[in-house]
């Protein structure tokens, strides 16, 4: 090989330079591949947020975006007499409960998908994904048909000669139920990815060395699966903060959640600047939380490991 290289020094140089070129280009190939996504998100995600910010500082009840500047909208929001804070607390409280309940509901399933179900895992995953392809309106309305007076539950109980079902519709409790129902997949799949990061050898080794099940769970499984569990919790929390359909369809507007307040400002009261100011507050809250959590994650490890 060495004499070949000596015999054709110019050929070797020629063979090297395209590779060299490719190496140089490789740095920018990634950036170029990212360009369409970046453009889309720049125009479709960042620009609307800027528009909201612009509206938030516009004269109340006007459409003078970027031409007027006032803090009046924020002053209205931060006025303690405003009921917006009540909505905000409802949304946060419901979101926290949703996350807590879902963590308990989804953990055994995520564990099962990784360790118990074997060849059934794929099918069970698909069954859990599929509801995402059915509009949440349709699914939540199905629950209305289930719980409503003379509905599936009430009607069946009466048919059996029992006094009939409880009146649960149009309460905060059923709103929480609806949120737990809707956001299950968003907790389940990150959690499953997280649990897949736990090496089984490690668990087996710990068991061979005499560790108890609770000890293994607390010292090995939980810490190693934490990135996935945290992503699931964050995702559910953020989506639940913005949820409106559950409170409207199942909750019958017995409570007003924060996104509903934003919507009311945009539609009935025709006060876009006030709605925008509220949206800005919510966005900052969610953005700060998300960016903080995402800055601590290594996505290559989470998604790349199979």
């Amino acid at each position, binding site marked *: 090989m060495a004499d070949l290289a000596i015999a054709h020094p110019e050929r070797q140089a020629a063979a090297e330079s395209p590779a060299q070129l490719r190496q140089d280009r490789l740095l920018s190939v990634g950036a170029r*591949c990212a360009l369409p996504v970046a453009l889309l998100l720049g125009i479709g995600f960042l620009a609307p947020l800027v528009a909201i910010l612009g509206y938030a500082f516009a004269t109340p009840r006007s459409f003078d975006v970027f031409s007027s500047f006032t803090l009046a909208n924020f002053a209205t929001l931060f006025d303690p007499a405003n009921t917006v804070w009540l909505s905000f607390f409802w949304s946060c409280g419901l979101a926290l409960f949703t996350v807590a309940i879902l963590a308990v509901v989804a953990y055994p399933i995520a564990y099962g998908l990784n360790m118990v179900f074997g060849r059934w895992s794929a099918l069970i995953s698909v069954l859990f994904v599929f509801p995402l392809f059915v509009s949440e309106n349709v699914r939540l309305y199905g629950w209305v048909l289930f719980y409503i007076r003379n509905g599936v539950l009430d009607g069946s109980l009466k048919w059996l000669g029992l006094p009939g079902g409880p009146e649960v519709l149009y309460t905060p409790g059923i709103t929480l139920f609806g949120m737990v129902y809707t956001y299950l997949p968003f907790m389940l799949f990150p959690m499953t990815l997280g649990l897949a990061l736990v090496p089984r050898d490690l668990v087996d080794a710990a068991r061979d060395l005499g560790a108890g099940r609770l000890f293994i769970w607390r010292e090995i499984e939980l810490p190693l699966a934490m990135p996935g569990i945290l992503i699931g919790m964050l995702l559910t929390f953020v989506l639940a903060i913005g949820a409106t359909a559950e409170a409207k369809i199942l909750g019958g507007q017995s409570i007003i959640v924060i996104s509903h307040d934003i919507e009311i400002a945009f539609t009935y009261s025709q006060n876009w600047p006030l709605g925008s100011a509220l949206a800005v507050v919510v966005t900052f809250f969610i953005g700060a939380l998300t960016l903080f959590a995402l800055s601590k994650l290594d996505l290559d490890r989470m998604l790349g490991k199979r």
Partner: protein
Amino acid sequence: MEHRRTKAAIWAWTLFVLVAIYLPIVCGALASFNKSRYFGFPIRTYATEWWQKTLDSIEIGMIVKTSISIALLVTVFSVVIATFGALAFARYEWKGRKLYQKLILLPIFFPQPVLGLAMLLGFNAVGIQTSWMTAVFAHMVWIVPVVTLIIAIQVYGFDASLEEAAYDLGCSRIQVFREVTLPLLWPGIWSGMLFAFLLSWSNFPLSLYTTGADSTIPEWLYAKMVAGYTPMVPALGTMATLGAAALLLAGGLVGILARRRAAA
């Protein structure tokens, strides 16, 4: 012994949750076969007349067409953009990658009703009239990141030296992409396409604010749920669900067959 009992408990719990997940969908299907206009259970007389009325309705026909057009365009655009996006996410080592990986998640970690409203404001600020075409764009903002992640998972399992080998054998950049990269990523791209179509098909919060005077199936259903219930609501809802199930089933079968053929 105890171990087996744990496994049984996990199976039982999972099946219970699955039943709960599909229960409301079944309730909707039941309501659509009820002959009388108002729902009562047990159903006295079953009838398919509301299905017939739904199928005959010209208004619903237009809405279905709008939903399909949006979903098809979203699928085509999203998959092209997301395939490159996934290569940037997982294949290439480049300067801004870590930042890009996180920024792409932001639209997923954002409440859709607020995102929809923000986009309505954005369209309004630059003077674009909203219609089903603006909804295509709005759906993409959320769906492209999701599809990028799905394809990226495939890219992680992809052996980059195969591309290098093709280059060394004298292939051009386009040839390598067409003959090596695309076939290897195909399973991920195929899942991405199914996700893109079905997520657009079922989306409500983004459509609500960005379709303007046009209406999609979830929007129509919501409007009728709030005011003016007829059994056509569960009928159309059930049809949309069955359509999604049929597409997922067909898509899954094609995927499995293609993999078998590739393996053979």
